[in-house]
């Protein structure tokens, strides 16, 4: 089964995103900041990471840079998912190694489309 780590300090966002990923047959893990996410990735590297930018302790940008330097850290497809919506932020995120970028607010169609963009096609039968 494909695995996904949802990294966001908002419990509401994590819950909404979890539902979307679960209907796409992902096994979902959650982390509420970059530091916890890095620990989780050290244990098991997920196939995909949905990543918020602004979080306490370690933000999404610093997490991504640390992840890409860690062993096996080049493997996960990272989708930033943030309210940081200006071109400069998007360019920085891509430069740091993000594969795709979702601007909040988002919906199921956007997540599905962006996952397809990075190679996770919706499986037949998935709701």
């Amino acid at each position, binding site marked *: 089964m494909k695995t996904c780590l949802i990294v966001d300090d908002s419990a509401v966002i994590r819950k909404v995103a979890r539902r979307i990923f679960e209907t796409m047959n992902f096994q979902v893990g959650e982390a509420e900041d970059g530091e916890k996410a890095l620990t989780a990735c050290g244990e098991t590297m997920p196939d995909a990471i949905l990543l918020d930018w602004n979080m306490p302790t370690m933000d999404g940008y610093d997490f991504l840079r640390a992840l890409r330097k860690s062993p096996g850290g080049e493997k996960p497809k990272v989708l930033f998912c943030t309210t940081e*919506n*200006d*071109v400069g932020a*998007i*360019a920085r995120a*891509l430069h740091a190694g993000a594969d*795709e*970028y*979702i*601007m909040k*607010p*988002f*919906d199921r*169609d*956007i997540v599905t*489309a*962006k996952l*397809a*963009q990075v190679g996770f096609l919706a499986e037949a039968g998935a709701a």
Partner: protein
Amino acid sequence: MTDLEFDFLRGYLKTRSGLALSGEKRYLVESRLGPVCRRFNLANLGALVTALKGTRDLAMERAVVEAMTTNETFFFRDRTPFDLFRDVLLPEAMARRATQRRLRIWCAAASSGQEPYSLAMMLQDAAPRLAGWTVDLVATDLSTEVLEKAKAGLYSHFEVQRGLPVQSLIKHFEQVGEQWRISASLRQMVDYRPLNLLHPFEALGTFDIIYCRNVLIYFDAPTKGDVLARLRNSLASDGALLLGAAETVIGLTDKLVPNTQHRGLYNQAAAGARAPAGRLAPAGLVPPVATAVMGAPPPLRRVVGL
């Protein structure tokens, strides 16, 4: 809405846009035409029907027809038809037109512009190979309202996130408040024109590649056959026609055949065999766009060397 009123509207729409509504689409008529009634200060659909039967009001007629069209679209919709353009159709057409150095592409149901702009992005990516070429990218739609949006090239946060890779977003768009505007160079590549596919369109000229996706599904079989036959006449003998995933030519015309290698792609049945010139236009259906350009070579905007 009474049965008589519903039947009137079905006939009215069938004649004007080809839309074939089955009996169970009553709800659709009610939900889409409610706002039209309010816009024209009419109490209900009954009053709208009475108004439509009275003196011809072009604004109302257009509002009714446009309200019933479906404009659902997004960038690189279904992906495959665009990969096919980049990897097969464009290189092959360039090889065949190497002498003329001219390509003509038509999006026949362009809606709010996402399809022609997706092709324009790919043409721009191929610009080094297209240096010295003339590429016509014509985009037509029945609805003038969606064409205005297409020309403006302004898209919402949601629209630019469905189908468009983020790299393409930052490469080709600029932020305008909450919206995103596609670059001027891409906007200039597309020649937008209002066109009802039920009306003659041979004045647009002949095309190497035609995208006509997700519009035939709304027509009945005779209308599909008629539109396909005329699309075929507007297609170069070695040209390519792309239809939507739920559409086909089978059982509708024998002049076009499915390509054996690529799903959704259709070619002329007998390459080289062209229909005789001087086709008859359906009586009483001469659209303004055709009258304006009829006879003369179409004054299409050209993109030279991109």
